[in-house]
């Protein structure tokens, strides 16, 4: 139960589509979504494969709780070898697409090969068809969704697609569903683009069942009550969204600013949740119009925003005067603090374009920040950039750059390579704020030490969503630790990593963990799924998944040498705030972490570890 027990295998080269039973033995070991699809991927592709070649595979996978009424039970993940990183990629998204795939009867779709011409897949219950996407190619995500719904005359279809960024194989392009929810990181959109796959449109009329309905209702109701009663998930996130962190992290001196030259941004308040709620523009409405919940989510942290119609970005573009997905914290940081830009409307516009054209705003903003530093150093100039004046703080530069990057036009094509390749091209690789080629997000490891280890060891390249130690180090959830010290962080990171891998594999949103522990989650999974799902078995599954991903990366050629942070974080001390004078203590934390993981000093899981995890 809970699983649909079926997957679709779509060979884009031959056009062959087959239905297969889901490997339930693996489901018992890897649960679903991130874990289960990673198992399939690692079994089916050569880890050394070129991510953009037809030999790479692209997997859309749901979790067992996806499509159920468990709060936030609406997630799906895209698993592939990442275009940006060359590491295993797993990008998780909400919205309504994942549940719809299950309503159509499938847990997972595996795409193989490469279509000769642009295609899209429709899954309408058991009618699965590859369709010609000739007239969709070149269309934005928003137009693609509208066109597909119109063509099939079904406004209740849910669609995951790439924008022009993915078509152009921008290395950090994402897959966007439901207009503004995205499988955002690691370049999963570029992989989709490389396969000439424009979109996946699903519509299902079947149902998802659970193993023990009465128990499921009991445990999920209890879970919802915990979320509602918790001050963070019940009030904080729905009211302020993640963006409330802007002032928190700035105050704590951990807001990477201007390509991490600084750890505090003087314009933070202008781009914060507080600013989003202030009346602006001629209609007197604030930037933030409403909050939105993804499927089954009782938290509803999503932002629905609008841009002031008189703002220079949209003054002549009424097509952008409507409401759409607003700034989340990471996007606001990347588009704003990382570039030194404090213009909220410009950031909102750039965010709209990222959604519309399918760009990861974190990697885009951080790459732009790196380019701005190259400009500042005189390495880039308007001759190279084709007239783009990449000055820190320039909203005009942000606007022009985001438009050019999706289209891969002019210097936009270089920005689309990501900061590692861009800075390397101009001889300054040390300026790239990345790990394993992926830009890190909105927490400076000098001010929040646990995040340094998090970034360095993340299996998909720098990322906050693999172990969100900010929760403990800054917000005190579940308990307060000191962000400025390294002691205990290896254990904290490992615990967060394993638990998050389990949550990501269940079909739930990691934001529930501001209120839920595995004590709340395991009973819900157990009631829905066959098998024994306890805190222990879930943690074990999480650890197994983590090691599986690690093993893939090791086989792909990554080594302990890749578990490192940019030079700036290790050498240049923070200039202001509580962390003033501090650098990252990764050197101290990493060996301890390897040991806790049961890995060799070279970061390789020992035979004992592999055996213990039944890998």
């Amino acid at each position: 139960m809970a699983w649909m027990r079926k997957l679709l295998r779509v060979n884009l080269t031959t056009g062959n589509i087959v239905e297969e039973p889901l490997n339930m033995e693996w489901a018992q070991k890897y649960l679903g979504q991130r874990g289960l699809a990673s198992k399939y991927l690692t079994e089916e592709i050569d880890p050394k494969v070129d991510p953009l070649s037809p030999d790479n595979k692209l997997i859309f996978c749901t979790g067992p709780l996806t499509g159920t009424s468990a709060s936030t039970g609406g997630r799906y993940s895209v698993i592939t070898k990442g275009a940006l990183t060359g590491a295993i990629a797993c990008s998780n998204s909400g919205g309504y697409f994942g549940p719809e795939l299950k309503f159509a009867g499938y847990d997972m779709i595996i795409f193989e090969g490469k279509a000769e011409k642009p295609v899209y897949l429709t899954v309408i219950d058991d009618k699965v068809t590859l369709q010609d996407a000739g007239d969709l190619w070149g269309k934005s995500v928003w137009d693609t969704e509208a066109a597909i719904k119109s063509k099939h005359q079904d406004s209740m279809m849910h669609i995951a697609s790439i924008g022009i960024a993915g078509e152009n194989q921008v290395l950090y392009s994402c897959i966007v569903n439901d207009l503004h929810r995205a499988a955002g990181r690691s370049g999963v959109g570029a992989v989709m683009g490389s396969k000439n796959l424009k979109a996946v449109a699903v519509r299902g009329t079947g149902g998802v069942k659970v193993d023990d309905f009465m128990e499921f209702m009991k445990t999920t109701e209890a879970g919802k009550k915990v979320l509602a009663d918790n001050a963070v998930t019940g009030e904080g996130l729905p009211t302020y969204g993640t963006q409330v962190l802007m002032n928190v992290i700035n105050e704590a001196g951990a807001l990477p600013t201007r390509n991490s030259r600084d750890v505090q941004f003087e314009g933070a308040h202008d781009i914060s949740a507080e600013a989003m709620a202030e009346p602006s523009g001629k209609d007197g409405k604030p930037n933030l119009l409403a909050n939105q919940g993804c499927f089954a989510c009782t938290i509803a942290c999503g932002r629905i925003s609008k841009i002031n119609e008189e703002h220079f970005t949209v003054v002549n573009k009424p097509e952008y005067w409507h409401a759409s997905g607003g700034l989340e914290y990471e996007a606001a940081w990347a588009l704003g603090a990382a570039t030194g830009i404090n213009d909220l409307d410009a950031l909102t516009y750039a965010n709209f374009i990222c959604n519309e054209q399918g760009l990861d705003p974190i990697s885009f903003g951080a790459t732009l920040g790196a380019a701005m530093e190259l400009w500042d150093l005189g390495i880039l100039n308007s001759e190279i950039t084709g007239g783009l004046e990449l000055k820190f703080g320039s909203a005009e530069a942000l606007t022009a750059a985001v438009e050019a990057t999706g289209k891969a036009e002019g210097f936009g094509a270089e920005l689309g390579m990501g900061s590692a390749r861009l800075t390397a091209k101009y001889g300054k690789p040390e300026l790239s704020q990345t790990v394993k080629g992926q830009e890190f997000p909105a927490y400076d490891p000098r001010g929040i030490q646990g995040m340094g280890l998090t970034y360095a060891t993340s299996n998909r390249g720098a990322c906050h969503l693999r172990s969100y130690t900010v929760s403990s180090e800054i917000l005190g959830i579940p308990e307060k630790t000191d962000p400025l010290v390294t002691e205990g962080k290896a254990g904290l990171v490992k615990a967060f990593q394993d638990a998050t891998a389990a949550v990501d594999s269940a079909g739930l949103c990691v934001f529930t963990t501001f209120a839920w522990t595995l004590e709340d989650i395991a009973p819900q999974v157990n009631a829905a799924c066959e098998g024994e799902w306890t805190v222990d078995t879930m943690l074990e599954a999480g650890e197994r998944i983590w090691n599986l991903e690690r093993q893939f990366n090791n086989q792909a050629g990554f080594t302990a040498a890749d578990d490192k942070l940019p030079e700036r974080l290790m050498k240049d001390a923070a200039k202001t705030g509580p962390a003033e004078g501090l650098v990252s203590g990764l050197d101290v934390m990493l060996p301890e972490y390897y040991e806790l993981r049961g890995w060799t000093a070279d970061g390789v899981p020992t035979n004992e570890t592999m055996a213990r995890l039944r890998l």
Partner: protein
Amino acid sequence: MQRALVIDPGKCTGCKQCELACSYVKEGAFNPSKSRIRVFDFHQNARFVPYTCTQCDEAWCQQACPTNAITTDAFGVKNVNDNLCVGCKVCTIACPFGTVNYNVATGKVIKCDLCGGDPACASACPTDAIAYTDVEQAGFDKMQAWAQKTDAGALQA
């Protein structure tokens, strides 16, 4: 006492918990496409609108039913009797609110019946956008006004 679903779209976040609850109670599986309540997403206007049968007095569906399969109970609820419904779908075109729908799987029509007095959608709504309250309470007037916007047909002088 008459009770009714009072819907406040301003509170709706689009989470679809109502659809999930409705579908499980009525269909035995989580299956929003067969939910009797549906949340419309007006994305560009930052609005979500839960939408279902208002159990209107006119009962267009009931009047149009050729086999007397739709009846009104003591609480004003219009119920479909599956044993009598032949699946002719006349009620689906007769209901000017579009809240009676055909279920291909069963060959019958489905509509909201307020779960016999304990509507699952209202219980499941995390934001009180859907409440089941006494009709005297504020809010029902609004719903009636909304229903009347669609009032048509015979006009009593």
